[in-house]
């Protein structure tokens, strides 16, 4: 038992990064750099802290219409990730919010679950 446990935990290790690579990096870039004025950056994006509580809903249901990041207005469609569990969204957000120079308080799954209750 003691031998298999570390294996259980490590299967979720780097899950946030893997989700980012598979679901986000094609648009937001390998380093969260975005693409010109088409796709907003995630690295150093003021939006992350300004809209922290809304981000789980934004990831789940997508984003459409103008959005201002670091003073620049972007207007591109981001599809929602309806299939991601609260745990996956938590790991993904923790990865994004603590990569490429970003620094933020880690989220808990419970916190993310509560925020998902309030999606508009």
């Amino acid at each position, binding site marked *: 038992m003691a031998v298999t446990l570390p294996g259980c935990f490590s299967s979720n290790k780097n899950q946030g990064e893997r989700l980012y690579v598979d679901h986000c990096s094609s648009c937001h870039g390998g380093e969260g750099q975005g*693409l010109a*004025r*088409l796709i907003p950056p995630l690295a150093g994006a003021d939006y992350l802290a300004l809209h922290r509580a809304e981000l789980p809903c934004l990831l789940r249901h997508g984003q459409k219409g103008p959005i201002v990041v670091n003073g620049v207005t*972007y207007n591109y*469609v981001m599809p929602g990730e309806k299939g991601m569990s609260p745990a996956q969204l938590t790991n993904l957000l923790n990865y994004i919010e603590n990569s490429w120079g970003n620094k933020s308080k880690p989220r808990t799954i419970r916190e993310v679950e509560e925020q998902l209750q309030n999606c508009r």
Partner: protein
Amino acid sequence: MLKRLFLLPFLAASLLTACTDPAARLPILGERDVRPRADGGPADTVFATVPAFKLTNQSGEIITNQTFAGQAYIADFFFATCPGICPKMQGELLKVYAKYGQDPQLAFLSHTIDPAHDTVAVLRDYADRLGMGKAKNWHFATTGAKGEASAKDSVFLLAKAYYTAAEPDKQAPGGFAHNGTFALVDDQGHIRGLYDSLNPQEVDRLMTELPILLAEIKARQPAVARQ
């Protein structure tokens, strides 16, 4: 038999140099047709060319095969609301533009596969946002200047001619399934290279092969001018 075996290493070596030799010519891709000559001389080999097209770019200008006279161009297929591979693909093409975009012998042609949505105004906004608003040699073009839905049939046919798969697909993100092929076309309308933009090694190959084609075109041009 022994002789043949001896030849093999030489053959292999010459094939290898053909692939790595910077002076090598790029192949002409696609169908070829051998036509007997009327005068009984050696038969002509006719290589496939991209079909005649008439598009409208982000400035409302008409773009035809003639627009690229004396130039190579890189063609790809995208749509402005594409949530899948397009940003990655256009980001890779931006890198090619950054390196070779100032070459007068090179142009870029991005076709929208969603002409009903991607009107000239939408294409202009897209080009602008990509930082290509002032670029004269990167065309974001549509087969339907009036946003007519029927124009998608002609762009799908064009995509096929450039060896790019593109078709409507309700399951695909954004409603269209397509792949991220870059087609490199020479000044005579022949396709000289196909590259998967989502594979960094393929983009590197384009970066290496592009100058070979540009040199070939430059070598051709004085002769054309003398005519």
